[in-house]
């Protein structure tokens, strides 16, 4: 295997609070790797460590053949970054943002100009070339940020919650573009807390909580390893009482969350038959997904 990035026993604390706690992972060339976790799990800190923006307290990190953070500058020449919060230059037009950013990589103005049409096309911003950033919609800004991350034709692209705050149309367009990038052989490393995003885009996922990776594998593997294949969601005022008395007999495992009950089963038939007897309860039968895995692994309580 051809690892582009590898981390061994990476640790980072801030003022006694452990944020990254012995992280081990390896990312292969050409894969889309997703780092999942609730707020505060250490995803963004992990990305900052990978880029060499902060130094780990302990552990070893390599990006390409460069030791990070010592040779981070050389590594960042071959990397693109889509940050979580918008940091485009508000005083500039779309084209100026790309031009100015390209210069930071030491690319000549002529070379950036030559790449501009392709970048604008990729970002669906061809008609917005001379529009100033404050006039762009949220989706357009994200796409410009993505185009900006490609200005140096990077081999690896880091994306920190690339679709947070976007409407479904804008999100689907970003997903389509990210798939095109993997099709071109780019390596993507993204953090997200949208399970649908992780499941659709990523070849491999790592679920992070409290600074550690608690499970990793392909979305299919994670579901198979961690959870029963079928889920029956039952809703209604009596759902909880029903679960305590009836669901126990048919479900391997169930979870009560307010007026909903999530029953996890290998075979849903007995449970569905049982539900026929209770017309006051509504239910939904579906295959298990990453969200179920995520909630099982990281718990249902709020992280704020």
């Amino acid at each position: 295997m051809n690892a582009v990035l590898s981390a061994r026993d990476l640790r980072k604390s801030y003022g006694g609070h452990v944020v990254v706690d012995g992280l081990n992972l390896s990312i292969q060339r050409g894969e889309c790797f997703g780092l999942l976790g609730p707020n505060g799990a250490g995803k963004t800190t992990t990305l900052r460590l990978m880029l060499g923006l902060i130094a780990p307290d302990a552990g070893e990190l390599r990006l390409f053949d460069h030791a990070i953070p010592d040779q981070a500058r050389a590594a960042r020449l071959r990397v693109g970054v889509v940050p979580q919060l918008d940091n485009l230059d508000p005083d500039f037009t779309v084209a100026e943002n790309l031009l100015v950013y390209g210069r930071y990589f030491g690319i000549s103005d002529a070379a950036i100009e030559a790449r501009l049409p392709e970048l604008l096309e990729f970002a669906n911003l061809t008609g917005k070339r001379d529009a100033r950033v404050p006039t762009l919609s949220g989706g357009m800004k994200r796409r410009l940020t993505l185009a900006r991350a490609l200005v140096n034709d990077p081999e690896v692209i880091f994306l920190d919650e690339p679709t947070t705050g976007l409407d479904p149309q804008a999100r689907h367009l970003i997903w389509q573009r990210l798939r095109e990038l993997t099709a071109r052989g780019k390596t993507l490393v993204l953090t997200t807390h949208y399970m649908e995003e992780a499941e659709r885009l990523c070849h491999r996922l790592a679920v992070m909580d409290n600074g550690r990776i608690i499970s990793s594998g392909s979305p299919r593997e994670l579901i198979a390893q961690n959870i029963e294949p079928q889920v029956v969601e039952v809703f209604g005022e009596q759902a909880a009482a029903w679960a305590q008395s009836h669901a126990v007999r048919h479900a391997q495992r169930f979870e009560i969350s307010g007026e909903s009950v999530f029953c996890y089963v290998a075979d849903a038939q007995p449970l569905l038959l049982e539900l026929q007897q209770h017309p006051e309860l509504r239910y939904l039968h579906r295959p298990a997904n990453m969200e179920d895995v995520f909630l099982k692994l990281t718990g249902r309580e709020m992280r704020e």
Partner: protein
Amino acid sequence: MNLSYFSLPRLSRRFIPIWRRNFLVWKKMAGSSILGHLADPVIYMLGLGYGLGGMLPEVNGMSYIAFLAAGTVCYSTMNSASFEALYSGFSRMHEQRTWEAILNTPITLDDIVLSEIIWAASKSLLSGLAVLLVIWLLGLSHSPLTLWIIPLSLLVGLCFAALGLIMTALAPGYDFFMYYFTLVITPMVLLCGVFFPVDQLPPLLQTVSSMLPLTHAINLARPLMNDAIPAQPVLHIGVLLAYALTGFYVSLVLFRRRLSQ
């Protein structure tokens, strides 16, 4: 504090694309910026110069307005660099997250801090040129030695940009800068001989004055305006350089600490 924060600055020419970025932003509002550089000092110089100057005989062997012009050049260049390093610098670091975007490229924090200082000094240079132009147009000095005020503006800019960045590195928000202007800049203007000769001050304040960078800038600018070679030029240049280098290093250490959180 982490020892790595204290390593010496690693400088490179990578500050240039950041300087060009700031220049491109500036070009978009060049009109109002140049007007600001010109209007403020001209109003001061003409208002105080003619107003007060009418009541005063010569000050230190020159007309009051010429005396004030030398102070105004230094005061203006100090202000330009300070405002740029504090307000605009903070905006780039914090509000607009420009630094964060730049740090994701092969550029390092050392390059960014250097670019901030050189950019703020460039604004000082422009401000110094604007005042100099007014001085020449009003005929306040005909000495070719006034050309030395151009590099002096740059040096004063480097000095106050570096000092200002220390505040930027410590600032929780824009309000914090009021302390610096009220407690440092304003007293400095009154202590360093912008409006009246330092020897009018009580001895204790004269001693304080001799340690402040603006005094050394004015001690260079005023003789140049008067067609004379300044006394102790090495001392004055040395003090300004020392403030610039110390400010650069201290602010860099503080920025390293701040941005590694």
